[in-house]
């Protein structure tokens, strides 16, 4: 057991005009998740603390938050990983805060929906599966892992300065289809991303890659999309 000072961003839209911070002193195991600490606060100190969570093991994408200044999943960050007993939790940046850690995800999903994030192939379907070689499948494996948590887009300074930038998450999901050898919509998706708010807003800042809890090589994926636009080659 160790003592933890947990500082939480608080904002209640019904009573506050400005956000403030609340601080709680807690006992915690080094292997506790930050999410466990927040559950503790919610359960035993202040039930009005609000945040999203569901799976509790880093696969649903609900709990992206800014923990000690960096975007992470609260359920995938252990107290011992933070190497300090002072933990500050704030909502992710660049989306409007609705209450405590809860932000308005709609603009994020709107950007996602813009890149045609779905499989396109209008050719007649075979009776069985379409074949794909192991290498072709491997080509886009990395970007299939995305859980749409938003940690990347909301860590991107280019997105902060202009929220019309479609954002790394959307590009990752476009990449997933552009490089799928079975898909036929690549040209259209590249057209969408070849826009002043598309891939060229990416300035190779890398915050996204560092923030991604699924360890997707986001900047590389974006780079590959840029290259595909430039060369027309999808290898």
């Amino acid at each position, binding site marked *: 057991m160790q003592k933890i000072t947990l500082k939480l961003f608080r904002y*209640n*839209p*019904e*009573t506050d005009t400005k956000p403030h911070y609340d601080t709680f002193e807690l006992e915690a195991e080094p*292997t506790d998740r930050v999410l466990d600490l927040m559950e503790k606060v*919610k*359960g*035993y100190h*202040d*039930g*009005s603390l*609000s*945040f*999203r*969570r*569901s*799976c*509790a*093991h*880093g*696969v*649903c*994408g*609900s709990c992206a938050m800014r923990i000690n200044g960096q975007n992470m999943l609260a359920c*995938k960050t*252990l107290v011992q990983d933070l190497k300090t007993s002072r933990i500050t939790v704030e909502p992710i940046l660049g989306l409007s805060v*609705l*209450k*405590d850690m*809860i932000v308005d*995800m709609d603009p994020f*999903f709107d950007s996602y*929906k813009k890149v*045609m*994030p*779905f*499989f*396109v*192939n209008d050719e007649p*379907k075979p*009776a*069985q*599966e*379409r*074949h*794909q*070689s*192991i290498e072709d*499948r491997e080509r*886009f*494996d990395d970007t*299939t*892992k995305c*859980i*749409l948590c938003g940690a990347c887009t909301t860590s991107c300074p280019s997105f902060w300065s202009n929220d019309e930038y479609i954002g790394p998450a959307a590009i990752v999901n476009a990449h997933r*289809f552009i490089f*799928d050898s*079975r*898909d036929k919509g690549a040209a259209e998706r590249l057209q969408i991303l070849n826009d002043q708010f598309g891939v060229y807003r990416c300035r190779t800042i890398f915050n996204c890659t560092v923030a991604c809890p699924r*360890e997707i090589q986001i900047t590389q994926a974006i780079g590959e999309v840029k290259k595909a636009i430039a060369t027309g080659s999808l290898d």
Partner: protein
Amino acid sequence: MKKHQFEVVVVGAGGAGLMAGLYASQSASTAVISKLYPARSHTGAAQGGIGAALGNLEEDHPAWHTYDTVKGSDYLGDQDAIEFMCEEAPSIVYELEHMGLPFNRTKEGKIAQRPFGGHTNNETGKPVMRACYAADRTGHMILQTLYQQSIKNNVTFYDEFQVMDLIMTEEGVAGVVALEIATGELHVFHAKSVIFATGGWGRVWEITSNAFAYTGDGVAITLRRGIPAQDMEFFQFHPTGIYKMGILITEGVRGEGGILLNGKGERFMEKEGNAPSVKELASRDVVSRAMYLELKEGNGVNGENYLYLDVTPETVNKYAALDGRTNPDGSPFSVTGEEILGKLPDIIDFCETYLGVNPVTQPMPVQPTAHYAMGGIPTDKFGQVIVDKKRKPLPGLFAVGENACVSVHGANRLGTNSLLDLVVFGKHSGMKAAEYAKEADYIPLPDNPTEFVEQQLETLRNAEGEERISDIGTEMKEVMFEHVGVFRVEDGMAQAVEKIRELKARFKNIKLDDQGKKFNMDLLNAWELSNLLDIAEVTAVSALKRKESRGAHARDDYQERNDKKWMKHTLAWLEDGEVKLDYKDVIFTKFEPKKRVY
């Protein structure tokens, strides 16, 4: 209060809800309502695979799949539905592939398959490769693919709307009432067909692989509206959850050759009475029970309450050689650390994140974890809800996915059959619901459709007691894990029932900190806890009454299966706070009950 009208309303946007929504929206106006953003649904947590007898790597047949499922269910599954599901399986997996689902591939470029517990070659009795997979993120890929297709097909979504009531009048089903979480406002969805797909309720137990959102809303709502819940005593405990946390380690690990070892380093699954033939790949109830006994005998690792699951190449290769396991081409089976990394990347990530253990070089500490609800809202194979022992349908009401009980899983679900259940019955209930809506008229809404919900919410909001919901929740989870868990006895279950009733009484005496309207998660969590309490009570009472051991329901005081008296489904009603039970026949087609050995 806002009103909407749709011919079909789907409650829940997991695998089941999305599939139903996709199909219903092809011919009827459809809304999909979900308390989570669809991509957050728990289907995304499913790891191992989806079962279908494609025979891509070795001989396999839907008939074998059917038999394995019947046997896995300990003969409690309805065989007509099982046969239907297994026959549909290959075509629905191809359909998922055509929707773009990125399955792993074989050398020939076909969908890759791996062995899973309880799936066998019916002639040799050896495990067969039937689970179609995408690394250890099969559920994630299914959820993403179905959500992507929903976007493509412009399905209407209401995200972060929590359905709290089913509107039923004398004439029948008229829609649902939902709370918009962002504003606290109530919405009425007037509908001809309602499909419930709200997932499971593993949060009743202390150690669970289930999400916070798994609070059994669908079943609790229908129970309150006089619809029974079927086979609630059958709740699956998965053998391999991460020690203390419950996070799931997929059965796929054992499919790839992982071995269970006790504190003495013995492979206990091969002991007589466990599963000397398929060993680690026996069905889940068998493995969980063996583990439980092993722990009870004090054979845990370091005297603690856990065992080892070992998938390091040395161990895998050693035992594969002992078992004489071969590849499909007949060469001896062996793996390298790299192959394991490629096939189980997420498991390795979980272990490294939460345990600091690298499964490629070290064994993983595991214990059984509450995992899957076999029971739920009774339906036929088109997802239509049936409300009594004579199988009388309730027109316009459908249920699908984990919150439904078709029943294809009977007393114990085989791994990979849930994902299959979601898509097969999701598709058919979606089509059926739309078809029904085309013929039926809207049933007029009652004068005050939101009355019941408002009253529930007011009671919660205005409660002026001193109990904290977190305390009540914790006590419920502990008592259920202790007494209505892997192993059960009369006394313990009776105590649990007692305790749950006490907790229900104390629940009236709560106090909420949050009195606001917007994102009042405090209020919603309290409401969800009331659902869990109802479900816990129904589960404990159903379990107490079933005096035999069958599948996941294992009793120390009645160790044998009793087909004469108990070859029947439990139906439970919740009337005026009392649980009433009745029983319904099991449907047999081909397979006569036999003793189950693995």
